[in-house]
């Protein structure tokens, strides 16, 4: 175990960071200069190109967290616990950004900061509460196998919660006409350039998430190794 070894190839995090920078630049350029202004909603509609990709990235992070949670329960490999925790942690950040951009969009489009009738926002609120509970759970238990197990179980429950939230809130509100429907069963409701911009923005957000994931993972691994070294040093004395 050598810390700080120099490798010939750049590691994953650096590659991802580079890709993110490129994609972000491209996306921002397309959002502000390439894509035509929306007929119905005007210039502020461009928030859509941030809000929805961020929302989708949040969902992806949760799924990734749950996947690693299941793998942890199967293998009991501590690194999988970390790989489940980090996306959940990033999910808070991206989730908050989803709520923030959603709220901003609501403000600009309809004049209110919040609208309970909006299914997307309400669903994300539920998910946000789930996230907070996840962290409360994690902080209430000593680090170790038990904490990892509990976190994994709760993460898996959360993944059950997400589709139920979406369906349930939609049932209860039953006025999704408020939230602009851009995707329906016929496919994307947008013309070519808008769809392309959306895809680039989505790729940029996912790339950002991957970068942050790899960076945080690496940071936490180094933390763990320092802790292990300290433990070894104490055992020897």
């Amino acid at each position, binding site marked *: 175990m050598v810390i700080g070894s120099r490798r010939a190839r750049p590691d994953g995090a650096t590659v991802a960071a580079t890709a993110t920078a490129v994609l972000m630049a491209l996306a921002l350029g397309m959002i502000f200069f390439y894509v035509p202004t929306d007929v119905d909603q005007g210039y502020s509609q461009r928030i859509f190109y941030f809000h929805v990709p961020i929302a989708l990235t949040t969902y992806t992070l949760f799924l990734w967290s749950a996947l690693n949670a299941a793998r942890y*329960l199967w293998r009991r490999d501590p690194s999988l616990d970390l790989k489940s925790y980090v996306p959940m942690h990033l999910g808070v950040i991206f989730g908050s950004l989803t709520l923030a951009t959603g709220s901003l969009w609501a403000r600009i489009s309809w004049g209110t900061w919040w609208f309970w009738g909006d299914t997307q926002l309400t669903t994300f609120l*539920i*998910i946000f*509460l*789930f996230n*907070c*509970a996840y962290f*409360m*759970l994690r902080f*209430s*238990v000593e680090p170790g196998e*038990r904490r990892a*197990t*509990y976190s*994994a*179980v*709760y993460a*898996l*429950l*959360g993944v*059950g*919660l997400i589709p*139920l*939230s979406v*369906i*349930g*809130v939609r*049932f*209860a509100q*039953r006025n999704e006409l408020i939230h602009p429907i851009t995707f329906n069963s016929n496919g994307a409701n947008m013309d070519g350039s808008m769809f392309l911009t959306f895809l680039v923005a989505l790729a940029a957000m996912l790339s950002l998430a991957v970068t942050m994931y790899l960076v945080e993972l690496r940071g936490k691994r180094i933390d763990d190794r320092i802790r292990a070294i300290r433990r070894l040093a104490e055992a020897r004395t």
Partner: protein
Amino acid sequence: MRAYRALLRKDLLLEWRGRELVPAMLAFVLGAMVLVRFGLGGETLAGGTRAATGLLWVIVVFTSMLALVRSFAQEREHGIWDGLLSTPADRSAIWAARATATFLFLALTQVVAVPLFWLFFLQEGRSPSLGVLVAALLLADLGVAMLGSLLAGLATHVRAREVLLPVMFLPFMLPLVTVAVRLTVDTISPQTRGFHTSQGLGFLALYDTIFGLLGWALFEFVVED
């Protein structure tokens, strides 16, 4: 199966002898309803039957919290977990028995709560469909009992259990209650009666199925050390 029956019998027997949980839940329900009824004032409840129905569900949720926090209290206080876990019995049987017992306690509480609710809050001709309400309550009770027993098992070894369990449970209650309220409130006025009722009940059944399966599969991990 034998283990499940024996464990369920144990839970029911202990509650019958000790009589701690169900009376507490009944007292809470009665107290809450009286408080709301008189607190919100006089003859007519602001918002009418619709608001009252929503309130009923809120009271149901809080009552189930009472039941859940006390789950596995005996096993924890007297260190009996080791006794149960060292036997060959399926851990899921422990979960299933507890979920069944909790479901029965909740349903029992509502047998009292629903008539009270009718008495206190409802006016002639403007009430939710009793059949739908009962069906929704039973389905909701089942979901709460199953998911709640899993979370209670998880929280059993955690320090801040009394605070953590409600916090962990809340996000899962929200879709359940949202649908249940909408479902039952819709049955009040003739225009929306029958509208989406089957969808709403179907959602509750889906909720129960998902968390039933997850509870069955995950309880083992939660109690292992």
